[in-house]
């Protein structure tokens, strides 16, 4: 029931770009140090992961130089332009040797090996790699692959639900993972039905094949399912068993790479999204060895300590908001989905029972109570329904009744904003427009929460939201009577990590700004002494026109 498509993985694929700072080009010492094998004016580098060492590669030439440890690479990261990961043939050869030692049925396993080696190179992520398995003749009729990955030492496990054209990612606790791992290991015939795994709601329809395998850094569970109830044939079970043995080595390589990639990415985002300018001192590039010639032939040390500043662009602030917003929405979405899952059935039970009781004879007072109960139940149902719609992770635009949506957000913020008197002023009776309701709701949510928190001790706190369409632009005006934001220019308040609250993250308004621009709109903070005043402008197209 989770809707988050694998956008995080796409990020991994496209967001890896590093610019070489202009200041660095002028840095004499760096030039001196790298100049022997890097042409600075081109300023474009790539690095490749070759086995366990990392190599820098220059776009324009064949020259490459490698880092022997990940730490070395990380030190140099700020200076990289583009990154790509490709497994080396050496890694693949090693796996193949390892597989051959297993002495599997030759004809089947060798076809798997050659196909998988190709796929390992041609796919860029683990999910993409797993998805390509559906091309296999033996797997053609299967619909879903579940891959559970536990990186040893981590508190959570990752569960990829992979279908031919999409994938979802979940997280489970270790205890769930180990009980699944154990029950699969204990099973003899390797085929399963929904009921054969206890205590773990797998949400797999029908029978499935499963295999578990321990790797050096990870424990893995692989499940494939056709989403039907027909039992698997003997050949299918046999082939699956061979496939998993071959596959385990390849998954290990892929996992190793994504592990490195994610560390690199984390660092990249840390650099780009840090509120402060980052300085790297000269030690960061202290040891670079040339992979082409002898490993230790280039050992460069800077003669004097110098400090390089990495420029941060304005955009980095928006990226930051995105990541936090993304995390928040997926977390909320997950929570709400679980809630809906667990609550909708018992609430429906209450509804039926109440309806049943209403059919019977009662005195007026009892009847009134029962009707009230029924109304409350129906309200709960519509709240559940609305919130799950509100937080579905989509990029789609849909027709939204603005007043209704703002009222839903008010309900959502109720516990935080109980003291705040909220009113919506709208010139027309109903106002609908096309928008991404999740993003729109998040913007409103953040603004309401801000007003509520700023006016906590004020018993006459008010928030007025006025809606007006002027020349194809929807103006949403937020005005509260709280303390406002003191002594600051209107631009400042939208910066990430800018906060006046004791426990604020300083991200709320940054997220608002980022989402508004995604909706092709703008948001302004207007200085005024009556309170905080925000003006949100969004392009307005009446769907009925």
């Amino acid at each position, binding site marked *: 029931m989770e809707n988050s498509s694998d956008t995080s993985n796409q990020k991994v694929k496209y967001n890896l770009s590093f610019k070489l700072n202009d200041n660095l080009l002028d840095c004499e010492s760096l030039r001196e140090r790298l100049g022997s094998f890097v042409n600075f004016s081109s300023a474009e580098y790539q690095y490749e992961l070759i086995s366990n060492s990392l190599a820098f590669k220059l776009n324009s030439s064949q020259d490459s130089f490698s880092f022997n440890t990940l730490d070395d690479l990380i030190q140099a990261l700020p200076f990289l332009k583009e990154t790509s990961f490709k497994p080396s043939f050496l890694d693949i050869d090693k796996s193949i040797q390892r597989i051959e030692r297993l002495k599997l049925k030759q004809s089947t396993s060798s076809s798997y090996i050659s196909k998988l080696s190709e796929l390992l190179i041609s796919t860029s992520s683990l999910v993409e790699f797993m998805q390509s398995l559906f091309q296999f003749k033996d797997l053609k009729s299967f619909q879903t692959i579940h891959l559970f990955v536990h990186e040893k030492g981590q508190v959570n496990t990752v569960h990829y639900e992979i279908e031919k054209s999409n994938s979802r990612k979940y997280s489970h606790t270790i205890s769930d993972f180990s009980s699944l791992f154990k029950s699969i290991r204990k099973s003899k015939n390797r085929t399963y039905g929904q009921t054969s795994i206890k205590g773990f709601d797998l949400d797999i*329809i029908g029978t499935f094949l499963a295999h578990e395998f321990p790797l050096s850094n990870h424990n893995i569970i692989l499940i494939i399912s056709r989403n*039907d109830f027909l039992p698997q044939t003997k050949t299918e079970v046999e082939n699956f068993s061979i496939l998993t043995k071959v596959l385990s080595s390849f998954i290990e390589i892929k996992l190793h790479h994504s592990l490195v990639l994610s560390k690199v990415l984390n660092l990249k985002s840390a650099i780009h999204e840090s509120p402060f300018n980052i300085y790297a001192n000269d030690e960061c590039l202290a040891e670079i060895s040339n992979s082409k010639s002898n490993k230790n032939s280039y050992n460069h040390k800077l003669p004097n300590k110098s400090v390089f500043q990495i420029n941060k662009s304005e955009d980095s602030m928006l990226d930051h908001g995105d990541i936090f917003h993304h995390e928040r929405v997926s977390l909320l979405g997950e929570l709400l989905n679980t809630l809906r899952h667990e609550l909708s059935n018992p609430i429906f039970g209450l509804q*039926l029972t109440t309806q049943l009781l209403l059919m019977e004879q009662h005195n007026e007072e009892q009847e009134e109570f029962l009707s009230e109960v029924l109304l409350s139940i129906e309200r709960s149902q519509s709240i559940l329904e609305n919130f799950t719609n509100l937080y579905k992770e989509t990029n789609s635009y849909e027709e939204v009744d603005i007043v209704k949506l703002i009222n839903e957000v008010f309900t959502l913020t109720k516990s935080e904003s109980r003291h705040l008197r909220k009113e919506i002023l709208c010139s027309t009776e109903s106002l609908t427009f096309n928008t991404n309701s999740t993003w729109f709701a998040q913007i409103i949510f953040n603004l309401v929460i801000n007003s509520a928190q700023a006016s906590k001790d004020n018993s006459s706190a008010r928030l007025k939201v006025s809606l007006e369409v002027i020349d194809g632009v929807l103006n949403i005006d937020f005005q509260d009577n709280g303390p406002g934001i003191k002594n600051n220019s209107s631009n400042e308040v939208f910066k990430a990590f800018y906060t006046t609250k004791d426990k604020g993250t300083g991200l709320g308004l940054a997220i608002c700004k980022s989402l508004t621009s995604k909706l092709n709109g703008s948001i302004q903070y207007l200085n005024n002494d009556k309170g905080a005043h925000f003006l949100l402008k969004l392009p307005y197209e009446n769907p009925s026109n």
Partner: protein
Amino acid sequence: MKILVIEDEILIQQSLKKMLEKLGAEVQTASKGLDAIPLIKENKFDRIVCDLMLQDITGFDIIEESKLIYSTEEIAQKFIIITAYSSDQVLTKAKDYGCIVLNKPFANMKSALNIMITGKEVE
């Protein structure tokens, strides 16, 4: 008219029972799928209203078991699936069996009960 209601949420189960009884049906209930199967095998029900997500097995498992005694046509006509989480997969699956699927909560109580009694979706 004999109806079997298989549903693990006790309030839903009992309320449906009472409501269907008011409409003149004779209703038996089961909370677990495995309890329902032997009842079905006695072949005495005109209609089987079956929740999809039960504690022990799924409604689809029950239908598969019922294939032993019922033809495909009988299954399509006897079984009515009620579910709170109707994904596309579930709907396709149910369509393969030819069964009517009712989403919980029911959009219209009267027509839902009517479908359970008649086995037909009427507009």
